[in-house]
């Protein structure tokens, strides 16, 4: 037999394709077949959609409608907004929020980019440890840097003179505190963007005799541009929606987040709280949409296989890298060190003896040790409920037959929480779950609503992690399972879950840490029997018990660090026991 292909010389003629004249509509039998066995999964995902509608969309809707109603519940159009405008709220809080968030974003992204550059483009030693330290702030509640800054630069602060007479209570404090706790978020995005650099681009630049400076601007920066933009949006959203830092160190300086709190907690003006929430929702939504848009572009440009980049030995460059890391490292150590130190000082600044007095929470207001155990329960609950819900839904969406419409709706609902600031979510939960007509308003004020709210608040990122992990599995696993008489459920438990274990651990830790440290969403929702540690920090600080507040913040941080440690050990164990079958795949 000839093994020749149709020759390039021969005149190949393919018969004209005959077009179908009639379009076949699916018959009844076909519809029935399509639905057979699928309706269970469709129903389950529809339930998932229903849960998210209940947890995100419905509360948001009540919030929006509240903003156009008066106290009595009558529709008043935009009157509340006009009122807020006329009292000068827009000029002060709205613009303050914008410029403070903008400036923090510029500072954090610059510092994070410098750090990411030093970590990925030089050959500094112990980069593993440095990474660990730089990520530390993520384990602390955002209140911790604010408290620490009070000790460092406040009225009785040790470094007060460094501010040359300026006040830490105000924009300076807010910006410094925000920079501390948002830094790891920016750093992680930039490290992801810069870790997988293509070595060939650097080789090409060297071959074309580009100077290091030119290589930096023509190769490094363009390679990281999506990461830079994304980090910018993320930091901006985090700062503008954060409530902890401005609450503790903002002084008389109004921002939207504290304004909501004041309207609701201080003056019981719920409808005005809703108005400010809508104003806060706008920039957050815009940043969210812009970030989604950029990410879509990015995924399109990251397809080709590349050769990993290995930086060359270069003493001068290493020194430069160390120089770029130093200020950030010093700042992080100073903030955490100060908080730890202050929490042990007996009576600042008069009695500097170290003691455990500040950890006797029972003697303070704010819930004491009960708040801490509540927090622990809430975080564990969030971790379990959240991880199960997120993975199960993501599995339904990715690995079972679903209509495109349903998956589209579900994807939208799962990402929506990313655009909703915690305070706004918390406030909308009051409106929705505390409504007398809501059949489940009994959960209001319990730990359960705190768990639901926190799961919702951090749903989007967990969902993205789960979906990414599930997408990486071979698309045919379920088909093979079916051919071998195994149901999708059996494939789920014997193949899919074991393969996703690392991602599951990541999501669990993410949910635990955030549930431990979050303030913004839960500050409206805790009840008498469900005080939380992070809120206790806030309340003790408000009552003037700053040292116990620092102690509680440190306790939260330490708890998160332990959780991280446990997760690290588990991941190590998983990696080791699965190394055999991962060999050669990575």
């Amino acid at each position, binding site marked *: 037999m000839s093994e*020749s292909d*149709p020759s390039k*010389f021969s005149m190949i003629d393919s018969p004209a394709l005959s077009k179908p004249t009639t379009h076949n509509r699916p018959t009844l039998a076909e519809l*029935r077949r399509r639905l057979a066995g699928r309706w269970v999964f469709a129903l389950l995902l529809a339930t998932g959609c229903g849960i998210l509608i209940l947890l995100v969309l419905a509360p948001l809707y009540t919030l929006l409608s509240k903003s156009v109603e008066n106290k009595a519940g009558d529709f008043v159009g935009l009157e509340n907004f006009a009122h807020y405008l006329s009292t000068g709220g827009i000029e002060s809080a709205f613009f303050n929020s914008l410029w403070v968030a903008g400036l923090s974003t510029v500072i954090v992204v610059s510092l994070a980019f410098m750090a990411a550059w030093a970590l990925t483009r030089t050959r500094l030693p112990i980069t593993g440890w440095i990474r660990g330290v730089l990520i530390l702030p993520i384990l602390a509640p955002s209140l911790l840097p604010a408290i620490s800054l009070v000790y460092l630069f406040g009225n009785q602060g040790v470094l007060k003179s460094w501010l040359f007479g300026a006040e830490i209570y105000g924009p300076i404090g807010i910006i410094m505190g925000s920079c501390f706790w948002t830094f790891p978020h920016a750093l992680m995005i930039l490290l992801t963007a810069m870790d997988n650099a293509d070595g060939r681009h650097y080789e090409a630049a060297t071959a074309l005799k580009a100077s290091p400076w030119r290589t930096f601007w023509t190769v490094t920066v363009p390679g990281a541009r999506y990461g830079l933009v994304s980090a910018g949006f993320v930091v901006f959203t985090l700062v503008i929606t954060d409530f902890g830092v401005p609450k503790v160190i903002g002084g008389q300086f109004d921002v939207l987040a504290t304004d909501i709190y004041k309207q609701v907690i201080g003056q019981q003006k719920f409808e005005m709280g809703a108005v400010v929430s809508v104003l806060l929702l706008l920039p957050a939504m815009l940043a969210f949409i812009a970030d989604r848009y950029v990410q879509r572009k990015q995924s399109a440009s990251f397809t080709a296989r590349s050769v990993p980049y290995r930086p060359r030995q270069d003493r001068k460059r290493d020194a430069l890298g160390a120089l770029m890391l130093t200020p950030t490292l010093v700042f992080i150590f100073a903030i955490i060190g100060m908080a730890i130190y202050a929490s042990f000082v007996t009576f600042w600044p008069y009695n500097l003896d170290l003691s455990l007095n500040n950890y006797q929470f029972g003697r303070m207001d704010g819930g004491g040790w009960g708040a801490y155990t509540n927090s622990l329960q809430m975080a564990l609950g969030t971790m379990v409920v959240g991880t199960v819900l997120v993975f199960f839904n993501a599995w339904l969406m990715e690995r079972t037959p679903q209509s495109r419409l349903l998956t589209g709706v579900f994807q939208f609902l799962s990402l929506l929480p990313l655009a909703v600031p915690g305070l706004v979510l918390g406030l909308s939960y009051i409106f929705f779950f505390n409504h007398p007509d809501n059949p489940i308003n009994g959960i209001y004020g319990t730990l359960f609503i705190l768990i639901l709210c926190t799961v919702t608040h951090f749903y989007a990122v967990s969902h993205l992690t789960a979906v990414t992990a599930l997408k990486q599995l071979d698309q045919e696993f379920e088909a093979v399972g079916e051919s071998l008489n195994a149901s999708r459920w059996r494939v789920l438990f014997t193949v899919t879950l074991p393969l996703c274990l690392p991602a599951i651990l990541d999501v669990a830790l993410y949910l635990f840490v955030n549930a431990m440290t979050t303030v913004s969403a839960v500050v409206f929702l805790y009840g008498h029997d469900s005080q939380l540690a992070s809120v206790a920090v806030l309340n003790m600080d408000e009552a003037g018990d700053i040292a116990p507040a620092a102690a509680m913040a440190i306790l939260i941080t330490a708890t998160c660090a332990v959780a991280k440690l446990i997760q690290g050990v588990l991941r190590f164990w998983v990696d080791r026991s699965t190394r055999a079958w991962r060999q050669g*795949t990575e």
Partner: protein
Amino acid sequence: MNQKTQGSRLEIQSVNKFFGDFCALKDINLTIEPGELVCFLGPSGCGKTTLLRIIAGLEHQSGGLLHQGETDISLKPPRERDFGIVFQSYALFPNMTVTDNIAYGLRSIGMPKAQVRNRVDELLALVGLEDQASKYPAQLSGGQQQRVALARALAPSPGLLLLDEPLSALDAKVRQHLRGEIRSLQRQLGVTTVMVTHDQEEALAMADRVVVMNNGVIEQVGTPLDIYQQPASAFVASFIGAMNFIDSAPLNGQRVKVGNHELDLIRPLPTAEGCIQLAIRPEDVHLLPSGDGEWEGEVRALDYLGAFIRTLIRLSDIELDLVVDVDPRSARRLDLRVGSCVCLNLPSDALHCFAA
């Protein structure tokens, strides 16, 4: 000795498949006999995978019926059908050893432990991987993974084995070797097998019958020899092997006119009026010394392809380039060089004709 599987008969009746408005399969009718190995062959996007997935129940036909043996399987979900499948990516479960992968289907039908062990050993022996039993897929070579996938699909003794481009992820040497191995395994077990490929060499070498597909329709079904020697359409003729096409006008009876030559055909004309296309394989053209043959031509190009020489010859009468394969000895005898003149004959028993 492993038990001989009784392969089942598969009957596909008037199967259609639409993706929205796009017709991926159009009126497919095909019967596959027990124990037969059938290859679906065709260019990319012609619907081979779709048809295979419909047979498996992983995709639903828009219309038509499927019978496996005596049972109507048209409406059955994959789990209730009796088949084993090997995907292009193999889709081996990476977290399970070779043994566990092969045992997966046996455990899901609740086979007792001891029996599972025996059956797995049997299959390991069958595919020659006894010494790899406790390894994980990532520790195996591509060819070994392929064999595990095959063993896993065969473990529950399915009546039907479906293979979607099972060899395309392997390099040429391994592919050649496994081709023979799969073929003899299939014969030995007697399992009815459908294999999808776009590699004609693979299809012709392995299949009992080849199903040539194009644009969602079956162009021809036949043994490899049939397909090669008696292509049913111009598409099949050009897709399998190389073919020259020559436009001509029909005269009376079985005579056609090409330029100012008249040719007798031994096959009946497809149409009485209009243009028809003559076709001839490069190796069927007879080259003769200048002045000895019916057609005059000039050598335009010579390609040395090892066992034979592929030449391009310009027919001066009808201004047409013809591809002709000659063996090196004849080429020496004719003293073929670019620019030299030759004569050639188109033997009528080698001429195919198609409606244009």
